[in-house]
Structure formats: structure tokens, C-alpha cells
């Protein structure tokens, strides 16, 4: 559970193992056709510097490789500012990003409604030579969680249900939560007016918050839907008034590289990326330090996409 940012030994070992496997497997592979779709040209996939974004890059990239594209990767490039510029320059041909994030980066307002945010994104991208795929269902946003026991005791299903009972409950979340509009800050107060008995400042979607919820030190906990370990016993309260942005993954593609076939391949993959699947992959990279390409391969195989 303790984050140790020493990745290179694991990576190096992984690379050695992959190399060894390739050497051993080379004779077996040489006869087989490398792809189903024949050669459709080459593409360079970029990715942002987040564990989840790196997995997404591999997920889409490996699916395209299977579809007959010659893939190369430029991973872990940076934030949207950096990677979007690389896409515009043609350093990369496509990369996955998060819809609401891109909309706000391009000066739009964004919002909670997936359809609305998508059309805003499409209009913002017009004239930039870039198109976006249909968003995947996953979102990694602030989630307000309670235990099943608390949910049934107070009949909680939505965030609105919480407003009335909040004064009886303790809340645990990141130290900055009360300053953040989407946590307990102003926008959140306008929509839900949550006034808890006590606000415990814990860690940012990490083990302390999880443990406090499990132990009942707090009854409501703020965790990240797509990148926190969610206790088995926890229930996500529905954001019924649309506080959290529609930050669903989309793939941004250079228009000159886009084809209906490419779009279809990517959308088929996106349809399988649910929040639960996305969280599983993110945690495998972020907490268990697995290699993003291995994690992506497992996901694609499990969903019969490769």
C-alpha cells in the first residue's frame, strides 16, 4: 500500500524477460501472420504521465496492432499541455486523454453530461485537424462512498439523500477537500450543501481514508472512482445533480490519420472500458507496479479484443 517510486529494476527485469521470451518464441512466430487485417500503415501512440493514461495508451495501441497497424509508442510524455501539442505537431498520431480535461484545456466549460461535453469537445476541436472518438464509459472522479450498513441505515442512494443526514455523519477525505469546488468546496455546497458533523482531513484517496471508512471512524469517504482501492463493502453515492465532470477517456486522433476503420477499432475497445475495469488496470500499474503493456494485454485478452 505504500507507494514506492522505484520502477526501473522491475521494468528492466520485465524487459529482460520479454526479450528472452521473444528470442525463444521467434522461430515459432516467424511462420504465423502477425495480424488479421494486413498492413494498414504505421501510427505513433502517445500517452500522458498518469498510470491510467499509460495503460489506456497500451490498450488502444495493442488493439490497433492486432488490427493491422504498425504501432510505435511515445509514452509518459507529460500533461495534456505537452501531449496535445505533440499531437498537433505530428510527433504523435493519436493519444488517449480525458474528455472534460481536454474541453477545459481548450477553454470550454465542460460539465457532467457526457453527450453535451462530447459535442462541446467536437466543436472545440474543429479547425485544429484533430478528432475525438466516442467516449468510454469509465470516469475517474471524486466519489462519495459509504458502507452498505450506513447506506441502508439512512436509506442513502444519491448525494442528495446525504444532504439531510450529513450533520449526523463524519466525513473523511483529502486535506484540501473543503477548498475544492468538486469535493466539499463552493460548487459542491451549491448543489448538495453537505454540512458534516466533522470533516476529517486524511490522505488523498489513499489507504488512510479507506481504513477510516472500513473501521467506521468516518461514515462518508471521498475516494477516486477510477484510481483508489475501493473497499468491497463500500457503496458509491450517485452524483444525481451532476457535480463531477464527464471526464471519460477519449482517443484524440490527427484527422489526416483517421479512417472509419481506425475509429471503429478504437470504439470497440472503448465500449469495454468501464470504471471498474479502468480502476483495476490503474491500480495494477499504480500500486502493484505492473508493466502497463502487460496490464493492457490481460485486459484485451479477457475481453476478447485481441
Amino acid at each position, binding site marked *: 500500500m505504500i507507494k514506492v517510486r522505484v520502477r526501473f529494476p522491475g521494468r528492466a527485469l520485465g524487459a529482460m524477460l520479454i526479450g528472452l521470451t521473444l528470442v525463444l518464441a521467434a522461430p515459432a512466430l516467424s511462420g504465423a501472420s502477425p495480424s488479421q487485417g494486413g498492413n494498414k500503415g504505421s501510427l505513433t501512440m502517445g500517452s500522458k504521465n498518469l498510470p491510467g493514461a499509460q495503460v489506456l495508451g497500451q490498450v488502444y495501441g495493442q488493439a490497433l496492432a492486432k488490427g493491422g497497424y504498425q504501432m510505435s509508442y511515445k509514452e509518459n510524455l507529460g500533461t495534456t499541455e505537452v501531449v496535445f501539442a505533440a499531437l498537433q505537431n505530428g510527433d504523435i498520431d493519436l493519444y488517449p486523454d480525458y474528455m472534460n480535461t481536454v474541453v477545459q484545456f481548450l477553454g470550454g466549460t465542460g460539465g457532467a453530461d457526457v453527450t453535451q461535453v462530447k459535442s462541446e469537445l467536437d466543436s472545440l476541436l474543429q479547425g485544429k485537424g484533430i478528432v475525438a472518438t466516442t467516449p468510454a464509459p469509465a470516469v475517474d472522479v471524486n466519489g462519495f462512498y459509504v458502507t452498505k450498513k450506513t447506506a441502508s441505515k439512512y436509506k442513502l442512494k444519491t448525494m442528495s439523500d446525504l444532504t439531510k443526514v450529513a450533520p449526523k455523519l463524519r466525513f473523511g477525505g483529502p486535506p*484540501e477537500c473543503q477548498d475544492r469546488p468538486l469535493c466539499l468546496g463552493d460548487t459542491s455546497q451549491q448543489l448538495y450543501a453537505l454540512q458534516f458533523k466533522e470533516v476529517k482531513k486524511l490522505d488523498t484517496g489513499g489507504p488512510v481514508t479507506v*481504513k477510516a471508512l472500513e473501521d467506521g471512524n468516518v461514515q462518508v469517504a471521498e475516494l477516486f472512482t477510477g484510481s483508489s482501492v475501493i473497499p468491497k463493502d463500500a457503496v458509491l453515492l450517485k452524483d444525481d445533480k451532476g457535480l463531477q465532470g464527464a471526464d471519460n477517456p477519449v482517443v484524440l486522433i490527427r484527422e489526416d490519420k483517421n479512417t472509419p476503420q481506425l475509429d471503429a477499432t478504437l470504439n470497440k475497445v472503448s465500449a469495454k472500458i468501464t470504471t471498474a475495469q479502468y480502476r483495476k488496470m490503474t491500480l495494477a500499474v499504480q500500486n502493484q507496479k505492473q508493466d502497463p503493456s502487460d496490464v493492457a494485454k490481460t485486459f484485451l485478452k479477457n475481453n476478447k479484443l485481441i
Partner: protein
Amino acid sequence: MGFLGDVVNWFGDGSHWSGNDGVIHRLTEHVQISVVSIVAAALIALPIGFLIGHVRKGGIATVNISNIGRALPSFALLILMVQIFGLGEPSGVFSFIGSFPTFVVLVAIAIPPMLTNTYIGMVGVDPEVREAARGMGMSGRQLLRGVEAPIALPLVWAGIRTGAIAVVATATLAAYTGWGGLGRFIIDGLSTQDYVQVFAGALLVALLAIVFEFGLAGLQHLTVSRGLRVRARPGGRVEDAVPEVAPTPAVPARPTG
């Protein structure tokens, strides 16, 4: 001057001093958990140190076992304790402990310097002095209480002071488990990029550490025998062996964090 000016203004703002999130309350919490942890660590470390120093057996093993407390990263130990005890905020009689996971971490880092220095202080007692005391017909207990412990005391105090400084600095971690203390200013400030508040919190911790250092030095002055003080009779043999002022701790101060 901009940043430091902001810090000065931060301290000048009365709203930063009062209330649950105010300096006074956080300072009280910080002193509370520090004192409780230092006392608990001393109650564990000093008797063991005096005992193994007196019988002169098992010293190396004991000191090495206690050093595990220094080897474990405090932050890792804290998260481990949270996994075991949860937020661990005792109510009722034990509420003075504040945050149990933090308490465990602080005791663990305070024991090694206290235990090691006590042991070293005891072992350093001149064998001739021990022989003389024995020759006068002193029992083991009388020897320990009347001769060895007083002579070892300057080094014992050095251990307590070293441990105390580490405790005051590390008690900032309590904020990470949702508890208070001056660490709140640092951790909350970091998560909202309010670096003025971070600096103010760090400054308060540093000042508190200095206050503890002076306070404990005062206590040392009151308890160490006059004949063992360097300034009392410079040039004496015993005094050379155990200087009172800034004794070289047998264990260097632990880097905190």
C-alpha cells in the same frame, strides 16, 4: 522580502491563532503528543538501559533491537499502524494519547537514542569507581542508584534530548492520520499550495524543538550532580569524561521525515 513578508502577515492575522485550526490549539496538540511520547519512551528505555548497563550483559543485542525503531521509516511505520489500529483516537482515560498510530511511531524513534545513551553512559563508568563503591560495602542496587546512574546521567540526558528533538519534528506526521498538531499547517498547506502556511508551520515546529531543547537542558542542569558539571570544576578527571554542555551523543540525531 515578498515571501517572508507574507509569512509575517500570516502570523499577524489573528484568525490564524484562535479556534480549532488556530496556532494555539495545534501547538497544544503538538506539545501533548510529543510530551506523552517522550515520557512513554523514557519509561521504557531508561530502566532497560540502566539495567543492562549495570549487569553489563546483553547490551549490544538490546541496543541493536531498539535500533529497529530508527531503521524503519517513520512514514511507513505510520501507515502500517493505521492499517492495524485504524485512525486510533482513544477516548476516555486514554484520550491524552491523541493519535495512537502516531504515538507508536514517536515512541519507536525516541527509544533508540535514549536506550543507547543510557547504556553507553553506564558502561562508561570508571571500573575503579565501581570497585571502590563495592569495597565500601554497597549492594548492587545502591551502586546503581548512588554511583553509576548519577555518573551516567549527563549521557542519559543527551539521549533524552536527542530523542525529544526527533519526536517534536516527527509529530508533524500526526496530521496525516487525520489528527491535529502543527503538522496540520504543513500537510494542509502542501495540499492547497499554500506555501506561506507550510513555512509558518515548519517554523513553529522548529521553534518548538528549540524550546524543548532548552527546557530539557534546564532539567538536566537541575538533576545532574554539581561535581559532574564541566563548568563547576573544569580540569577534573570525571568531568572530562562526561561533559555536560553539548555532549556528543553516542547516537547521532536521526534525520526526520
